[in-house]
């Protein structure tokens, strides 16, 4: 490892740590700025109508103590960090006494199972289409470009709603919401898995269709940029076959596209919000949405913390991978 490389990584790690700390603090503070006292809301629900003022006060004091809200803001922050480190993330306000880690644990797999394949499929299809558009140009490009520009202009929720209406409401070939039928109990039986796959289609394709457009547009302009590069002309005049030159071009155009892939994987929880709320898919996005609506700080903090860590890790890994796989970045960073 060269000296420049070591310096580069040291700097990266330094900023990684600093950003992480700042993000943790923000994740703690921001949700607590939200209006509405969650304890009052819980007590209002749990206390019997005839309870006296003292009983209510007692209840409030009980919950405040349970949630650690009687401590100073620093004490609360300390608890937050402690709970984050030991992995429980504290107790949910709105689903008391469920722990936050339980809520997140039940949602995160749905989100990953939904998003990861969808993002990958969308990325691959989009890049292939974009590359084709750049290479074939003329006819293909003329038709495909406006179409994918239009597709990428349809908002994610719009695509989800259109699919929902066509396939679930009108054609009735797919269910309207959920990840499996309400009456089923999750277990690994063929019928349950079939049911899950049946529910999986619409949210999956709505994410795929949305990402194809944007990826295709990006890949096309990257490829055209590379096709016009000097090395293409030089390689041609050295007698190198067109097929190999095309491989050069697409490899070089593809490398920057990896950024988009890594970032969308990193931010998939945030990206899941729209599709999951429209299809009432029981993932992390839905959990976060419910938590926001019910001022459930611990859940909000935990989900945003997960998003933060994922994005941070994604961008940090990217920096490192790029430094090795793309000599252009390598040369620019290590000098």
């Amino acid at each position: 490892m060269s000296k420049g490389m070591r310096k580069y990584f040291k700097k990266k790690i330094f900023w990684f740590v600093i950003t992480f700390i700042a993000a943790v603090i923000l994740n703690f503070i921001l949700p607590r700025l939200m209006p509405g006292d969650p304890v009052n809301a819980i007590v209002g629900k749990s206390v019997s109508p005839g309870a006296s003022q003292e009983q209510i006060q007692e209840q409030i004091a009980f919950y405040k103590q349970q949630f650690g809200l009687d401590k100073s803001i620093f004490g609360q922050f300390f608890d937050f960090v402690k709970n984050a480190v030991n992995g429980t993330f504290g107790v949910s306000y709105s689903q008391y006494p469920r722990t936050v880690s339980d809520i997140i644990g039940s949602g995160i797999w749905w989100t990953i199972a939904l998003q990861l394949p969808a993002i990958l499929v969308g990325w691959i299809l989009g890049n292939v289409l974009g590359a084709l558009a750049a290479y074939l140009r003329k006819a293909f490009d003329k038709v495909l470009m406006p179409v994918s520009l239009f597709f990428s202009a349809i908002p994610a929720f719009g695509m989800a709603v259109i699919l929902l209406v066509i396939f679930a409401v009108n054609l009735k070939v797919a269910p309207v919401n959920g990840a499996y039928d309400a009456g089923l109990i999750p277990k690994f039986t063929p019928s349950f898995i079939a049911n899950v796959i049946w529910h999986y289609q619409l949210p999956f394709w709505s994410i795929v269709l949305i990402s194809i457009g944007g990826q295709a547009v990006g890949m096309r302009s990257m490829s055209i940029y590379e096709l016009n590069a000097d090395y293409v002309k030089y390689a041609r005049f050295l007698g190198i076959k067109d097929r190999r030159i095309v491989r050069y071009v697409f490899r070089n155009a593809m490398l920057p596209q990896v950024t988009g892939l890594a970032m969308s994987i990193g931010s998939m929880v945030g990206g899941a919000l729209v599709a999951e709320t429209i299809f009432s898919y029981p993932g992390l996005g839905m959990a976060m949405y419910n938590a926001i609506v019910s001022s459930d700080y611990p859940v909000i903090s935990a989900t945003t913390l997960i998003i933060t860590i994922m994005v941070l890790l994604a961008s940090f890994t990217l920096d490192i991978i790029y430094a090795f796989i793309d000599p252009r970045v390598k040369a620019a960073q290590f000098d």
Partner: protein
Amino acid sequence: MKSTLRNIFHSPRFVVGFVIFMAMVLTVLIYPYFVPRDPLVSIGKGFLAPGTYLSVYDANNTSTYRIDLPEAAANRMGSLLTAEDRKTMLDFLTVMGADTEGLDLSDDSVNDLIALWKSSYDEENVRTSKYEGFSTKAQRNKLKRLDTKLSGSDSAGAMTVVSGEGDAAESRAVADTDYVKVNEVANALNLPLGTDNFGRDMLTELVSATGTSLIIGLIAGTIATLLGLLVGLLAGYVGGLLDDILMFIANIFTVIPGFVLLILIYYSVGQEARGVTTCAIVIGLTSWVWTARSVRSQVISLRNRDHVNLSKLSGHSLFRIIITDILPYIASYVVMAFILQVSSGILAEAQLSLLGLGPKTTVVPTLGLMMNWAKLFGAYTSSNAWWAYFPVILVIALTSFSLNLMNTGLDQVFNPTLRD
């Protein structure tokens, strides 16, 4: 400058995008002069399908014209019988062995179908024969209802209109050949997009919402672009510690994705303060990051150009160098970034509102709020009222489409290597 403008307007993509966008802006500006109705006033009850609505009362009091249309009776029957009704009739006739040769579900054969039905259907016969598929009581009742429906509408000749309350005096008979002229009816309402769940005219609401959303996009885009430009210029040109600090802030904004941050900040503002302007400002404040990054990298590449060094040597102030030696070189880029920011601002508002975090307003609608209402009141599930959400999605898509087109058009003009 002039030739740049000419080049821009020679780019087909830019022109198409510009025309679509300006058409929308003009519609938003002109429409209120033609329909000066408050976009949020309820005129109906629940989802009304698109169409022209005539006041039955006024239609009765409008002078009539006699028009003999040979297909009038068939049309009348056709609109009376749904496709499902016809299918039931056809099934029944087939089961009981009537000659249904040449009959189908289209309007053309509806008269023959009815004639055949009248000659074949007998309540008594159905009850005793227990035809296959029509043996239960519910099924027989269905047939009976159908028969009643047919005979009720069949009183060939005239229909009596009674006016006044409790007074059963016949005021006038309406013949089936009587017509009124639509624009002579005192109250006729054209609802090209129907109404939403509150019974509000969708078109008027949509036009007003488009206007509001465009304003949100413009405010958010302006804030994001100016902020991004400022941060990018300072970080890129001044560099050093300032660069590190500014990029650190930008990093935090990337790590906590803008959308999440948006929700958190927006929620902490409090429901009461959440107006259209606040919404736009918050969106702008959370989306400047990528503009700042790209401006910064462009400024860094400009920083050591000869003309900038020359200015530095001549002792020009930081402000002057930035204005005269840096800004002109990134101006085209900033314009493009602004267009994209406007488009993503409109989208951000729509997503926020869809999640119920949109502007708290009862004065003006936004595109996102309309989507939210459609969702809350089951427009795409239980009511299946496509007109309550599809036009909204279309307008959002068209807005970003036109802005993106303008952007790629500009890109082709400013970065000729991308030209085909």
